[in-house]
């Protein structure tokens, strides 16, 4: 496939993806339109509530972008994912956990890579740890702290990390020989 064709395919895929994710906000806006005709005063209050909520989340969102940028700038997920262990040794656990925590983007993007890694010999335990550790999102921590406070976030993050190891152990045991 020529590079021009690839560009066109990518552009059309991007447009389709944008179309898909725009359905939900467009539906909500349509609800606003209908409700505005029935209850204009209440709809205005709803708009104002959403605006206030957006203002409340805006500062953490700026931080979200900064952390995303730092991760994209300094972290090379391909290199870390390549260090996935075959078994559940400390190195395998740590690297798959770190890879899960720093991985960004939707999970389905990562499935082909994980499939390839497993064909290369990566164990079920490290893959399960990677998938579970994705629940820890360093770049979204500012938003989470704004809502729930840092004590809650620290406790939940620590428990998530421990749980990811437990899931890795379970999967290694239950998938033994598979």
């Amino acid at each position, binding site marked *: *496939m020529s590079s021009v064709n690839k560009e066109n395919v990518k552009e059309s895929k991007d447009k389709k993806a*944008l179309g898909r*994710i*725009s359905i*939900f*906000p467009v*539906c*909500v806006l349509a*609800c*606003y339109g209908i409700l505005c005709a029935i*209850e204009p005063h209440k*709809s205005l209050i*709803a708009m*104002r*509530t*959403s*605006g206030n*909520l*957006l203002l409340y*989340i805006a500062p953490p969102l700026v931080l979200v*972008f900064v952390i*995303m*940028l730092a991760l*994209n700038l300094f972290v*090379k997920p*391909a290199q870390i994912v*390549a260090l996935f262990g075959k078994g559940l040794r400390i190195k395998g656990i740590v690297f798959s956990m770190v890879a899960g925590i720093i991985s960004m983007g*939707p999970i*389905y*993007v990562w*499935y*082909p*890579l*994980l*499939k390839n*890694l497993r064909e*290369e010999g990566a164990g*079920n335990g490290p*893959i*399960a740890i990677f*998938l*579970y550790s*994705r*629940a820890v*999102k360093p770049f*979204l921590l500012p938003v989470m702290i704004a*809502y*729930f406070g840092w*004590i*809650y976030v620290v*406790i*939940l993050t620590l*428990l*998530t990390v421990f749980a990811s190891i*437990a*899931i890795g152990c*379970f*999967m290694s045991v*239950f*998938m033994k020989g598979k």
Partner: protein
Amino acid sequence: MKIAISSEGTDLSAQVGHRFGGSPYLIIVDLGTGNFEAVPNPGSLNQHGAGVQTIVLIISKGVKVALTGYCSPVARKHLEANGIAIFTGVSGTIEEVLVSYKKGKIQKTQAATIDHEPEKHLVDKARLIHAMKRSGNQFVSMLPIFLGIVLLIGLLNTFVSKNFLTALLSGNVVLDTFLGAFFGSILAGNAINSYVIAGELLHYGISLFAVTALIITWVTVGLVQLPVEIAALGRRFALLRNGICFMLSMPIAIITVFIVNLVTR
């Protein structure tokens, strides 16, 4: 030391592949032992993320040098960033190229075609621009759903009474946690949406047990993505992993809230 050569075939008599990412095979040669293996090049499949898979593949094989006809600037950048030297403009059979490389001929004649880091600050600037573009795309792609949820919360706050929402949950810790975990499992999307929804539900008086279970399962359990996970990692793995994650989410939610209550009391 291992070297990877893009190839049109699976043996040493095959021609060197013109494009690093698009050649059907990669011949990986261990110069120490002389052993080689031909591996299908995932990059040739033209699937999303296939180029990354080629890079991950050769990193996982411990390759230090890659030889090919042509390599795109993006792939070159990723390879070099991962410590792999790339030599382009190579042609002939794999065997001929190997002999030339061992004699140091390729190194002498082709090294000039390697894009050396011209100026330290120039490379940093290019990397920064790439990172900014990537972060911008990731950020923009999560905005439509996020804004939709913010608008929806405004509607719910104004048009739906708090009593209605709290009546949906019984106040029973186990049942509320189960319901939170259940809704988190069937909903999908960026985790930021789960935080916003959970935070607002908390304002409505929904228990912290339920919203914590929702936050956990939102990312760790994916009923919507289950078919894709089954296709990639197998039915047994996907069902078992999602099942265990769902079951574990409830004790984790309960323990989290108990510890938070203990610490903040």
